């Protein structure tokens, strides 16, 4: 058994290197068939004492609606027979297992059956709880999206929720948060509609002359980011308490300021080394001031063009949600990265700093709550007013001084984002020098002065100078070529939508044949083939991706319907026809709106592609 464990463990770390199990501590555990797990002095069965096969058969019944592309997500390994049954019934489906217990993981690895799963590293993935559970939230972020969210089937192993209750809560918390986020994103994309697309069009033109986050990171490589302290300024109400103190640390610490905090920074004579602005609507007057206008800026493809119009310094682009520009730039070796975030610009700035390799991050103005019933620092936004305490959307959370402070759901999501990411970076120091607001788990609480005491940029490197020397994405020839491609995609909108329109009759013909029960006829097969080819075209064509910039209700509905399945072959075809027609409607509408917004944006900003 020990040999088997050693062999299987080696196989596991070949593909999933993050595992670090103490297999040498393994002693012969009981056999699965009489396996009991002791937790807090209580003994739990992990098998049926009478008939385990019967228990497994009953467990398997919950997978009756699993389709070929369903992802099976399990909370726990339990008895090896669960995984065996699952794999033999669904040989090609992806299986992800979150196992909270190292002991159970080792026990499974010591079993000969594990070998089969470990060889299948394409379709089988283990996540171990405890220290490594942050990997799970990373995996969920990658896994749960609009087009996959309904394709995940989650199941638990009996008794696991009671034995490993903390991990169980964590497991579902992460899943629920991710699902909520996908839904909010879908809603936001639809709501922002034309304005968001106008911003993307402006920024697509602008980005060609600029750079991406990789270039920013490389530019900073001369600086020992690991030894450098960075101050991240957000716009919480407590910023007014200590922003002034930051002035004496200019050029000693790297100062990053989010757009909303810029007015307060300027009023207090603080010139940041980098500004982050990723919101489609935010415009801060302070960008117009002489001291700020040339400060390097990190923007998103959806950032407010008004801000970019005024700003005269270097711009480094990220792209949170637009496949078309990402695809175009990738062909020229330029990666439009997307920094993970929980919804706030400060989250984006924080992820960026980790990406750039900073190891000591000091937060100020990061209240994530409303101390003194204020939303932001007083100069952040004009005429903002105070909280309406009668509104029941506000609730209390723990404050940094151990008391309570009012917050609301979105702020809480942002805080959880910080906490989850802080957990993932045990090698970094995170200091909350906000001097107010909500308690952020994983941070050390200090005053700003305490946090920055002794900080000195010994080499006297000018941060702005370093950034300004960053490479540009494209040379002149490449720029011309990218603009040509964009122009051609725009000019192709009509051709694309006409192609879509032509497909309506094919789908309708299929519907008619289906109604007449002629779905085994040659005519049906011929039209079905056309639909398959069309779907492939839609999936891979870059010009079609341009239409997707306009995410509308019909397109989201279409992506959602991709996860529906019919009980019968006929029902299945019916779903394909309806979602196909929905998709075409979505693309045609998107094309019409896109043409209009493209023209308006080019006229408004005098853009030339």
């Amino acid at each position, binding site marked *: 058994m020990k040999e088997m464990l050693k062999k299987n463990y080696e196989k596991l770390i070949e593909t999933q290197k993050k595992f670090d199990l103490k297999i040498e501590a393994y002693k012969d555990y009981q056999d699965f068939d009489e396996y009991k797990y002791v937790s807090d002095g209580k003994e739990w069965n992990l098998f*049926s004492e*009478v008939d385990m096969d019967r228990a497994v058969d*009953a*467990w398997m*019944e919950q997978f009756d609606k699993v389709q070929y592309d369903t992802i099976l997500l399990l909370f726990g390994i339990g008895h090896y027979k669960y995984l065996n049954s699952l794999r033999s019934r669904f040989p090609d489906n992806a299986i992800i297992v979150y196992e909270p217990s190292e002991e159970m993981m080792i026990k499974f690895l010591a079993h000969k059956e594990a070998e089969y799963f470990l060889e299948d590293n394409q379709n089988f993935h283990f996540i171990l709880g405890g220290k490594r559970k942050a990997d799970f939230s990373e995996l969920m972020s990658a896994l749960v999206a609009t087009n996959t969210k309904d394709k995940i089937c989650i199941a638990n192993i009996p008794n696991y929720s009671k034995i490993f209750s903390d991990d169980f809560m964590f497991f579902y918390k992460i899943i629920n948060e991710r699902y909520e986020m996908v839904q909010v994103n879908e809603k936001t994309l639809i709501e922002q509609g034309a304005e968001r697309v106008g911003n993307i069009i402006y920024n697509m033109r602008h980005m060609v002359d600029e750079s991406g986050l990789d270039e920013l990171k490389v530019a900073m490589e001369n600086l020992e980011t690991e030894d450098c302290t960075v101050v991240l300024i957000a716009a919480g109400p407590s910023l007014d308490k200590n922003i002034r103190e930051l002035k004496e640390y200019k050029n000693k610490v790297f100062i990053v300021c989010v757009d909303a905090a810029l007015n307060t920074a300027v009023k207090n004579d603080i010139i940041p080394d980098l500004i982050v602005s990723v919101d489609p609507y935010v415009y801060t007057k302070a960008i117009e001031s002489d001291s700020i206008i040339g400060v390097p800026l990190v923007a998103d493809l959806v950032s407010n063009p008004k801000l970019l119009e005024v700003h005269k310094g270097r711009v480094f682009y990220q792209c949170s949600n637009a496949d078309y520009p990402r695809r175009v730039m990738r062909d020229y070796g330029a990666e439009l990265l997307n920094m993970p975030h929980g919804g706030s610009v400060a989250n984006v700035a924080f992820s960026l700093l980790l990406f750039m390799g900073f190891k000591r991050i000091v937060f100020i103005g990061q209240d994530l709550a409303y101390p003194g019933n204020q939303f932001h620092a007083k100069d952040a936004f004009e005429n903002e007013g105070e909280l309406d305490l009668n509104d029941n959307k506000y609730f209390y959370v723990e404050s940094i001084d151990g008391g309570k402070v009012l917050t609301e759901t979105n702020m809480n999501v942002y805080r959880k984002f910080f906490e989850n990411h802080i957990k993932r970076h045990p090698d970094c120091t995170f200091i909350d020098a906000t001097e107010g607001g909500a308690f952020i788990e994983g941070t050390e609480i200090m005053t700003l002065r305490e946090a920055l005491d002794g900080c000195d940029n010994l080499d006297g490197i000018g941060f702005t100078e370093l950034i300004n020397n960053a490479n540009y994405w494209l040379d002149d020839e490449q720029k011309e070529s990218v603009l040509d491609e964009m122009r051609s995609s725009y000019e192709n909108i009509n051709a694309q939508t006409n192609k879509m329109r032509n497909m309506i009759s094919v789908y309708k013909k299929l519907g008619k044949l289906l109604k007449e029960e002629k779905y085994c006829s040659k005519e049906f097969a011929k039209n079905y083939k056309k639909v398959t080819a069309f779907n492939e075209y839609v999936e891979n064509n870059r010009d079609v991706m341009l239409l997707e910039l306009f995410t509308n209700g019909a397109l989201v509905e279409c992506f959602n319907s991709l996860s529906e399945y019919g009980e019968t072959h006929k029902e299945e075809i019916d779903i394909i026809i309806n979602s196909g027609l929905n998709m075409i409607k979505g693309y045609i509408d998107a094309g019409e709106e896109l043409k209009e917004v493209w023209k308006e944006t080019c006229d408004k900003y005098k853009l030339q592609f």
Partner: protein
Amino acid sequence: MDKYIDLIDENCKLLWQAKAVDEVELINMINGSTEEMMEGVKKMLSLGIQFPVQYVTDGLRHFEEAIQSQDNYKLADFLCFEWKEILTVYDEIIAEM
């Protein structure tokens, strides 16, 4: 006893699928089926038919232990392989009467 047996099958499936069960419903099922059996046993005795009442008494004790343990496997094992068996045997005897 069919309605009790159906309820046992449903609950065992839930327990084996690690899903929540309604404990009050289970207690009512055990009490209801015990009462019905005791009525039937009286009739059996009047006809001189023996029924192993000790199994029922032991079963009730096992049920209490299983409920208290909160252990899905123990409770499902009890319901499916002990109590259901008692109800089935009872049904068979009643059918022969």
